[in-house]
């Protein structure tokens, strides 16, 4: 249970890690845009605030100049001045004038202050002020000019909102563009990929990759075409080699066989020598069988035996059983054919014969004393089973030249051929070992 869960997690993680090529730059671009835009918020704020404050300083200075000039131009009496200042201070909130003692006079300065604004109903309003001292009729006065400035947090929020808006637009744009690019630009790549997926070295059908106007894809296609052509050539050479080698071996084998037959006619040979000569036939038969099988495999792979017909399987099977009956009887193995219905199979007759022969011979060979062989059919599964002592090695069962039995050596090609024939017609072959019996079942499709 835990294992299943673990597998699910792993799969899920893998899916998460696996992503489309274009999503990688998209993620990077998006992240980069996010960083830049976040960094831009304080930068914008600084720029806006500086311009704003500069502008207000100029404004405050202008107001100051205006006031100073006003007092200079209008020759007012001391009382009038005091009066005007009082009235002014009450009505004009941004400007404060008050008389100071000469020792209080300082240099002009600029400041910022935050205080509540009861008119705007705000707790902390930011003000930019200018403090200056000037003289009217020889008396020092302190002049304060203050102007309301946008608060820091308000500016930051406004800039952030705008930035986020633009960021969203940017991301949406990225995604849409990405989608468009991935379908358009990657089309030739996907075509190539699909072609490659359908390529089968065995079928010998060279693939035709579409011409692309994108340099990288065109280069890829060219390299792939070259690679595939090379592969086909090497594969063909290899197959041709097996076929030629087997052909070449037939003649010396024929010579050996005929020499043995001739030698047996020699009247000067004694019994022992004759016996020795006769035993030569056994290894010779083995070599000749291996050679035949190699040739057969090469031919099947080369897609020879292409003519197909509807075959009466029962008939072929019975002929095979008949040929092998004395061999089986000699080994005291009984063959029981339980097939009742008629089986018609589409395929090459020769190949079907070979398949059945190999299965039958194996069943007789790898049997026990007084053993049995059963043959059955339950549409669409044909099965052949025989008594035995040990299970065969499933991993090496259909491999060439690897004996799957720990008991007896053989040339290990019989089942490879059966498998190859099954592959060719998309039949599936299965092996199980139950109740001390080898079971081979072939599912015809």
């Amino acid at each position, binding site marked *: 249970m835990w294992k299943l869960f673990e597998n699910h997690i792993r799969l899920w993680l893998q899916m998460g890690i696996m992503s489309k090529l274009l999503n990688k730059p998209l993620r990077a671009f998006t992240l980069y845009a996010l960083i830049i835009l976040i960094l831009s918020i304080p930068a914008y704020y600084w720029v806006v605030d500086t311009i704003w404050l500069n502008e207000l300083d100029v404004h405050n200075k202008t107001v100051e100049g205006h006031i100073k000039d006003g007092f200079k131009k209008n020759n007012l009496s001391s009382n009038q001045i005091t009066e005007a200042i009082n009235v002014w201070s009450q009505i004009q909130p941004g400007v404060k004038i008050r008389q100071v003692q000469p020792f209080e006079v300082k240099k002009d300065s600029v400041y910022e202050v935050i205080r509540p604004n009861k008119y705007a109903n705000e707790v902390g309003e930011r003000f930019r002020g200018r403090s200056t001292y000037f003289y009217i009729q020889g008396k020092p006065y302190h002049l304060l000019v203050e102007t309301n400035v946008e608060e820091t947090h308000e500016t930051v929020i406004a800039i952030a909102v705008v930035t986020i808006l633009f960021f969203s637009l940017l991301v949406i744009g990225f995604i849409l563009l990405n989608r468009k690019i991935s379908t358009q630009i990657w089309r030739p790549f996907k075509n190539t990929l699909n072609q490659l997926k359908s390529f089968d070295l065995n079928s010998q059908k060279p693939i035709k990759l579409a011409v692309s106007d994108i340099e990288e894809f065109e280069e890829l296609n060219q390299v792939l075409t070259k690679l595939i052509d090379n592969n086909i050539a090497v594969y063909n050479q290899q197959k041709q080699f097996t076929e030629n080698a087997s052909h070449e071996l037939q003649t010396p084998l024929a010579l050996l066989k*005929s020499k043995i037959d001739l030698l047996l006619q020699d009247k000067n040979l004694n019994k022992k020598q004759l016996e020795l000569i*006769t035993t030569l036939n056994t290894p010779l038969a083995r070599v000749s069988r291996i050679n035949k099988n190699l040739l057969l495999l090469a031919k099947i792979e080369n897609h020879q035996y292409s003519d197909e017909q509807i075959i009466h399987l029962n008939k072929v099977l019975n002929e095979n059983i008949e040929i092998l009956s*004395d061999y089986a009887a000699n080994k005291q193995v009984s063959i029981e054919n339980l097939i009742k219905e008629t089986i018609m199979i589409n395929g090459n007759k020769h190949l079907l014969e070979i398949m059945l022969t190999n299965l039958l011979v194996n069943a007789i060979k790898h049997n026990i004393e007084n053993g049995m062989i059963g043959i059955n059919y339950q549409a669409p599964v044909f099965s052949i089973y025989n008594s035995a002592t040990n299970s065969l090695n499933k991993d090496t069962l259909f491999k060439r030249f690897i004996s799957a039995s720990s008991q007896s050596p053989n040339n290990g090609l019989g089942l490879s051929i059966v498998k190859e024939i099954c592959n060719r017609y998309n039949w599936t072959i299965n092996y199980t070992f139950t109740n001390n019996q080898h079971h081979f079942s072939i599912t015809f499709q």
Partner: protein
Amino acid sequence: MKILVIEDEKELAQNIADYLETENYLCEFAATYTQALEKINLYHYDCILLDLMLPGGNGLQLLQAIKEQNRQDGIIIISAKNAIEDKVSGLKLGADDYLAKPFHLPELSARIYSLIRRKQFNNTNIIEQKELQIDVLAKTVKVNDEVVTLTRKEFDLLLFFIGNKNRVVSKSALAEYLSGDIADMLDNHDFIYAHIKNLKKKLADAGCGNYLKTIYGSGYKWEL
């Protein structure tokens, strides 16, 4: 009897000739396409053994050339190619038999024997040897005019021995004759003992002389 061996492997051709010699067959040889064509145009043969892969041409073309002359020579293809297509097209073109290399010489001899007999005695193909009488077409055997009932395999074996008269035939050649291509898949050929034992017994019971001899250590011989 004249036999033409068209085979580029000279040693194999010689082996064939040596084996057939005892049966009073006279063998001639051709190792190339042109040599073969020359011989065919000049002489008639009872049987032609034809290899398909020849220097200078394909044996199938040669076969076509023979058949175009409307001749009666028996033709056995002996080929290393063992391709079904070659076998089919060879037989279609008019070859009488097809034998794949490597083969046992007794197998070839038996086939030549039966082919020549078939050509010579079209309707009444009856082999007579002393008290033994074999009707090849009806597949019946008589000993002193008494019918002996043989199984198909026993009958085939008898014909095989007659076709290899006075020569030692190995167990392996007999197995190959009975089981065909499958023989070399089988790990032993002891199953032929039973057939031979039965054949011997049936013939002896019918009063036939003991012509089928067991040659200890090597095989059997039909001795006359």
